[in-house]
């Protein structure tokens, strides 16, 4: 099927912007002016919709919840979202996933900061440490629970997160923050808001260090184990956000950032990785008239990462690895025994350019329509992952539309579809259909189905990692199958939203049935070489069926008390093709690859003016990370209790806040892998602000 050229579509939309009358000078105010909708939830379909109208389950983590929480890092907040699992691959490599197993690189979430997609092109995962977004930078987070591919594209396969940062308009003056805690936690941040002529600006500088987890020493599965862990991190980020509003109908946002993170990579064996990232983001919103608006979004993300290790020389290879004859004798005869087989340093980069133009139309009485077109250019470079081509790029065009039809007082229907076309590959289309039934002002039921595709990441479809000597492959680490297909998800859900203003309670329930097929993982097959008899292959190896129920309850009787509860119950079935061997295929079951139960409660009480007390309790049942097939099986469920207290004092235009956070009071627990021991963490913070 041939789709209209992107250039033509862009031209049509730009012509449309400049051809419409902005202010009709009609000074009569009608009922429609009074009912005008002000920007509300937009993350699901990009349309202005109330929670009762959206075609998916939504969790909003607002400013009050963020300040009430016991979170120290951004990722801690996702424990407040039902169905979300937060885990540590190591202390500074956090995985966040929704329902499905996450793995070392959780690759199936769309994560955006103010509409800019931040999952990187290489692994299609999010490097949370490099984002540079502090809790104080966030206005609110909008989480779409369930696939949002019809609006956000292929990588919103499981769910979609939009982190909305604080506008330069919502703050004033300067703020400085220092935190100090055990486990080497040291943090400092500085932010300043100013007005340069018509440009409102907010600049932030953040520095943070931590030592990571302690080395593991103890019993595991009846054996004494010692695993040295070196997963600390140092991060420096600088961010700038500018807002220019030349008139009432146009606003232009400019965001720039640069950062560096020194950390480690790997699990149970570590080597150094340095991330250097920059981004430039521009968005222009034009409210064209009473019934439409248009938004142009342009951004560029660049992420360089340098991996450093001791490397492997030829002599070290011979001495430390079992090499069969006659290869061993050939290698020993080589005069230069110090030549590198595995380099001590590998430079890699991941680069993305994205342009998106979208428009919302509210012209019709019962219909709201959203149209968008976009083009993305991803390029990655890695001598390690792609030793032959070195640099690989991919252009992807996409066009989407979401439609909301209010059929009557009780029924609202939504339909959304996206068509994505990567260069050199067939196009695919994801869609969602939903019917929301409002039986009364307090009760809304949602029935929705979703069919989504996810394209393989550049790494998943192109990886070919091997180490050779004079053209002879010594170690073939992994290669991609030549025909890796798109991943597929078909899901059905019944949702319920109950609003009980008299009781100050909001309840959100989602019952779901999600069927994943052609999920990309790793299989093994026989391979005869100097050092190995098997090779790992990236391929469509997994099929998973997930069923369950999740709910969240928010109780806010007054501005003094907040209680948020959520619970998830998951049942998983399916298997993973572990190996194709001459003796037959070997499959691993997914039966224990996700926690069956997750529960979280957050309680915040404002004792007196500006003195806050918070407590949160999190429970996760046992599961097997099922990534390496090693002995990493987690046998115990865990729970953790976090406490926080904070007090703020005001002195004229200045204020000072002291806070103490204690995470995981009580026994230590193993986070994701048995050797990641999460000990009690205490962080003392001081914040000062001046306007």
């Amino acid at each position: 099927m041939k789709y209209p050229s992107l250039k033509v579509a862009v031209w049509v939309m730009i012509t449309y912007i400049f051809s419409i009358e902005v202010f009709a000078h009609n000074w009569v105010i009608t009922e429609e002016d009074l009912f005008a909708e002000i920007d509300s939830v937009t993350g699901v379909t990009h349309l202005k919709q109330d929670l009762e109208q959206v075609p998916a389950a939504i969790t909003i983590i607002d400013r009050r919840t963020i300040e009430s929480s016991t979170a120290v890092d951004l990722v801690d907040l996702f424990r407040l979202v039902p169905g979300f699992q937060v885990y540590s691959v190591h202390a500074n490599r956090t995985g966040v996933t929704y329902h499905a197993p996450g793995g070392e690189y959780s690759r199936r979430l769309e994560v955006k900061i103010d509409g800019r997609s931040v999952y990187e092109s290489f692994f299609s995962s999010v490097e949370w440490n490099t984002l540079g977004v502090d809790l104080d930078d966030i206005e609110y987070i909008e989480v779409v629970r369930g696939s949002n591919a019809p609006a956000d594209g292929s990588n919103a396969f499981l769910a979609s997160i939009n982190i909305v940062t604080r506008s330069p308009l919502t703050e004033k003056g300067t703020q400085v923050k220092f935190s100090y805690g055990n486990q080497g936690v040291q943090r400092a941040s500085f932010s300043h808001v100013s007005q340069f002529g018509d440009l409102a600006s907010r600049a932030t500088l953040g520095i943070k260090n931590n030592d990571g987890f302690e080395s593991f020493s103890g019993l595991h599965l009846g054996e004494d184990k010692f695993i040295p862990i070196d997963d600390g991190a140092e991060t420096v980020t600088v961010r700038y956000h500018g807002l220019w509003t030349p008139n009432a109908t146009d606003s232009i946002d400019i965001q720039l950032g640069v950062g560096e993170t020194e950390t480690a990579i790997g699990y149970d064996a570590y080597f150094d990785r340095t991330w250097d990232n920059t981004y430039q983001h521009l968005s222009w919103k034009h409210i064209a008239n009473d019934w439409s608006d248009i938004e142009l979004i342009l951004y560029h993300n660049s992420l360089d990462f340098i991996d450093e290790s001791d490397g492997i020389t030829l002599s070290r290879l011979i001495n430390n690895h079992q090499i069969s004859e006659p290869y061993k004798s050939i290698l020993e005869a080589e005069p230069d025994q110090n030549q590198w087989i595995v380099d001590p340093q590998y430079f890699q980069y991941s680069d993305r350019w994205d342009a998106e133009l979208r428009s919302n139309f509210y012209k019709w009485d019962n219909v709201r329509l959203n149209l968008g077109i976009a083009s993305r250019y991803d390029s990655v470079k890695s001598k390690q992952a792609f030793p032959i081509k070195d640099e690989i790029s991919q252009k992807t065009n996409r066009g989407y539309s979401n439609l909301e039809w209010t059929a009557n007082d009780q029924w609202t229907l939504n339909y959304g579809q996206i068509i994505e076309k990567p260069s050199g590959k067939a196009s695919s289309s994801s869609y969602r259909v939903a019917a929301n039934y409002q039986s009364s002002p307090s009760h809304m039921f949602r029935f929705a189905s979703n069919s989504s595709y996810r394209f393989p990441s550049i790494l998943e479809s192109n990886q070919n990692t091997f180490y050779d000597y004079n053209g002879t492959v010594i170690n073939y680490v992994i290669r991609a199958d030549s025909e890796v297909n798109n991943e597929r998800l078909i899901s059905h859900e019944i949702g319920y939203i109950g609003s009980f203003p008299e009781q100050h309670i909001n309840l959100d329930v989602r019952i779901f049935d999600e069927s994943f097929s052609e999920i990309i993982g790793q299989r093994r097959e026989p391979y005869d070489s100097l050092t190995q008899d098997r090779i790992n292959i990236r391929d469509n190896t997994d099929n998973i069926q997930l069923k369950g129920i999740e709910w969240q309850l928010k109780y806010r009787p007054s501005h003094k008390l907040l209680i948020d509860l959520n619970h998830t119950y998951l049942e998983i079935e399916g298997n993973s093709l572990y190996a194709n061997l001459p003796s037959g295929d070997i499959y691993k079951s997914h039966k224990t690859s996700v926690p069956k139960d997750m529960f979280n409660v957050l309680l915040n009480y404002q004792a007196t003016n500006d003195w806050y007390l918070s407590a949160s309790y999190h429970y996760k049942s046992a599961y097997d990370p099922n990534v390496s097939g090693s002995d990493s099986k987690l046998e115990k469920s865990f729970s953790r209790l976090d406490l926080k207290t904070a007090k703020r004092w005001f002195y004229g235009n200045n204020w000072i806040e002291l806070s103490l956070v204690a995470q995981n009071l009580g026994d230590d627990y193993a986070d994701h892998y048995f050797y990641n021991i999460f000990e009690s963490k205490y962080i003392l913070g001081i914040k000062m602000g001046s306007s």
Partner: protein
Amino acid sequence: MNGYKLKRGFFMTLRRAVCSPRVALFLVFLFAPINSYSNKFDHALFILSKDTPDYKKIVNLVTSDWKKSKSYGYMILIDDQSAEIDKNLKTSDIIITLGTSAADKILAKKTAQPVINTLITQSAFKSLADKHYGNIPKALASGVNPILLDQPFERRLNLTRRLIKNMTDVGVMIGPSNANNQSFYTHSIEELNLKPKILLIDPDQNPIRQLDPVIKSSDVFIPVADSHLINVTTAKWILQLAYRHRVPVIGYSANYVAAGALASVYSSPQDVSKQTAELIDSLLTKNHKNQMHLPRYCTVKFNKTVAWHLNLEIPRDLEKNTGRCDL
């Protein structure tokens, strides 16, 4: 010549006086004709500006107990169904329009039956009365009964006073549609011994530079509803700047509260339908006076997150849905 000038000046003054909302209301009460309609009707005709659930909901609420306790028949038409409207006008005993567009269609026909214009703003009704009857009193004298949708500004001020103690400076934003009423807002605030800071927003200039100094120096900020575009394009900046300066915003709709205003007082569908149903019954009484009806009921809604941010306690007695407005 002098006489002509005098005559012209007198009529200009009279016209201005009649067009002033307060004087108009007074005159309406003074000279409003006593209803002479039959005190019984069989059939009502509802004309909707739009075929949307919001409008239909009000009809459903108005007619909810008609089948049980009354024997009224009724029909619902959309204002673009011209042929159907003409056909049913003659057989209807009362016409109820919902929205400005439907009111425009029906007032143009100058029907003999009593007309209730509901879901209509004061601004829109004045415009239609001028257009079809010359002025408001003539429209009322012809049997038109508007139920105004916009809550009086005084109610927003009263809500503000009950929420925020020790306030002195009241910031108000008005748009081009309300430019001529600037003195009304100034006097309303001054009557309460408060200091008004009125901003007439210019949509062609940077809204933030206009809003920031006013919000910054106010104890509370009250945006007045204007055209859709002004409302939508300024709301986001008002709410963000108010957050920055910790200034409460008192809005005029549920949407404003959802977006971040501390509170709003507005007419909900339940409020509108309740008053409409009562007015229909009232039309059947002999002593009914045709008049402009201010909204009798109101809904007050709060944003608890904003209250938390501002460290404000919301009086429990203020939070209510659909009730006689005691603000």
